[in-house]
């Protein structure tokens, strides 16, 4: 079930929440018609995000998913602000503000616990394994690298390592830094180029320099596996949570709308 394309579903759900919030900035209530219309529009054209495209085109070194954070940073204060202004406060706006807050808090919590929690912890575990492997002498080390499907170097010849250019340049940057600092016993654990729109050019790198020589291990397959596992987990949980929030909020908005209409009908 988790193999499904949750990473395509969740951004659309978030954009749908943004679209509903933006609609309620201009209209006091939301009925079933605008709800379905916005759902269809986001479903069809949700991928065409101008801010995302701007980031991809003009700031490729930045993660384009910052655009989601920018939308949230603009919309959240506006939607929540309406709740505190008596003449703009309506049941639908209050519910949407609560929903948007819940969605933002949920995604932040998932991000903190999984992306900045589990992912580096997994990298640390792999790097510890690599560090233990580096205790071996050269023939055993080479053999262990082959067994574990890792790309290794024992003589400091980084250029000959069968890696992509971006991973190799990452290792060269570590080497340059080590030389500049003239460190004789130096271990670097790092991972290269990980964000969730990228599924290649990932590696957990362990770089160890001591007076006897230089050893480098790049765990490419392990990094891709860890990245894929945590990415799918993150998007599955986020999609479930966001879909639940949206359904609850929309249900309550429709229920309130129905009650309001009946009251109006009776009082008129």
């Amino acid at each position, binding site marked *: 079930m988790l193999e499904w394309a949750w990473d395509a579903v969740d951004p659309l759900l978030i954009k749908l929440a943004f679209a509903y919030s933006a609609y309620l900035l201009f209209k006091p209530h939301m009925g079933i018609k605008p709800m379905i219309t916005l759902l269809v529009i986001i479903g069809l054209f949700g991928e065409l995000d101008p801010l995302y495209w701007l980031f991809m085109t003009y700031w490729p070194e930045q993660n384009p998913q910052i655009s989601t954070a920018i939308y949230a940073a603009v919309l959240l204060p506006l939607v929540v602000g309406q709740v505190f202004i008596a003449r703009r406060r309506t049941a639908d706006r209050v519910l949407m503000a609560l929903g948007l807050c819940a969605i933002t808090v949920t995604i932040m919590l998932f991000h903190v616990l999984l992306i900045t929690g589990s992912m580096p912890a997994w990298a640390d575990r792999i790097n510890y394994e690599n560090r233990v492997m580096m205790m071996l002498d050269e023939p055993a080390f080479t053999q262990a690298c082959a067994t574990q499907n890792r790309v290794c170097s024992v003589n400091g010849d980084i250029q000959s390592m069968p890696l992509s250019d971006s991973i190799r340049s990452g290792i060269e940057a570590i080497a340059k830094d080590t030389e500049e600092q003239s460190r004789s016993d130096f271990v670097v654990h790092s991972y290269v180029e990980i964000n969730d729109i990228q599924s290649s050019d990932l590696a957990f790198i362990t770089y160890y320099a001591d007076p006897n020589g230089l050893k480098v291990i790049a765990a490419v397959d392990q990094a891709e596996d860890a990245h894929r596992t945590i990415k799918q*987990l993150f998007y599955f949980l986020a999609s479930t949570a966001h879909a639940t929030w949206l359904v*609850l909020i929309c249900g309550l908005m429709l229920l309130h709308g129905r009650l309001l209409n009946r009251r109006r009908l009776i009082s008129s």
Partner: protein
Amino acid sequence: MLESITNSGAAFLGLIAFWLLITNKLSGGSALVLLVLSAAIGFSPLAEALQALFGITTSLSLGLLPCVLVALLALILMQLRRRRIHVQGMMLVIAMSGWLIAHSAFWVAEVTWFEPRFLEAQDNGYQWLNELPIKQQLTICANASLGCQSVDGKISIKPARLRAERQRIVNDPLLILSASATGCYALGVLLVLYGHRRKHKSSPAMNAKGKSDLHSAARAKIMQIQRSNGYHSFLSPKSTEAFGSEKSSAYAGKSLSPTCEPESTPRI
């Protein structure tokens, strides 16, 4: 601790459900009593006993799930039987559905995806160690503080170490998510129930039993309009007696609206 919080939250939702099922209303005092009782259940060995009783061996604390499920079904049945919307029951059904979805998602994600994949990666991690002579294996184990143990002449990493890694990377983040979701839903239910009750306590839309009643609201509105027109209410069964009594004398001298004669006022 986290498991106990999750158990307490689950127990709280279940207890409120049973309480509403029996008494049909929830006051602040009774909610507080239920909160204390659920904390006592969650932090006592009873939760573990329930977990063992239902045979759920997952690390997530689902011991109280069946109890909550039964309560949820009972509440849905109660809703179906009633014509009027019972606001407290509705809120609880919504919150419990959300909580169940969240909890099931955490459980599915952990059991079917995250833990198996992590365990596979962990099992493959030190395979190279088995290819070394026993003496060298022991030396590396000692130098790297791996805490190896010998089982049937084979060296393996101590389960305690592997368990600690799994706990840190897989179980703890999901347990934190589970505890926060349960805590938020339980507190959310409490706040919404309290807020709704407070809002409607002074409202004319609340009948004598403290229930939100659309007809009461309509009746109150009509009474208000008639009073503002200088009329006494003709809606109560005693309306004919009241006409000409001390109450109606308060309006003596005021002209009656020609469009609304007392005799012709329709009963609602």
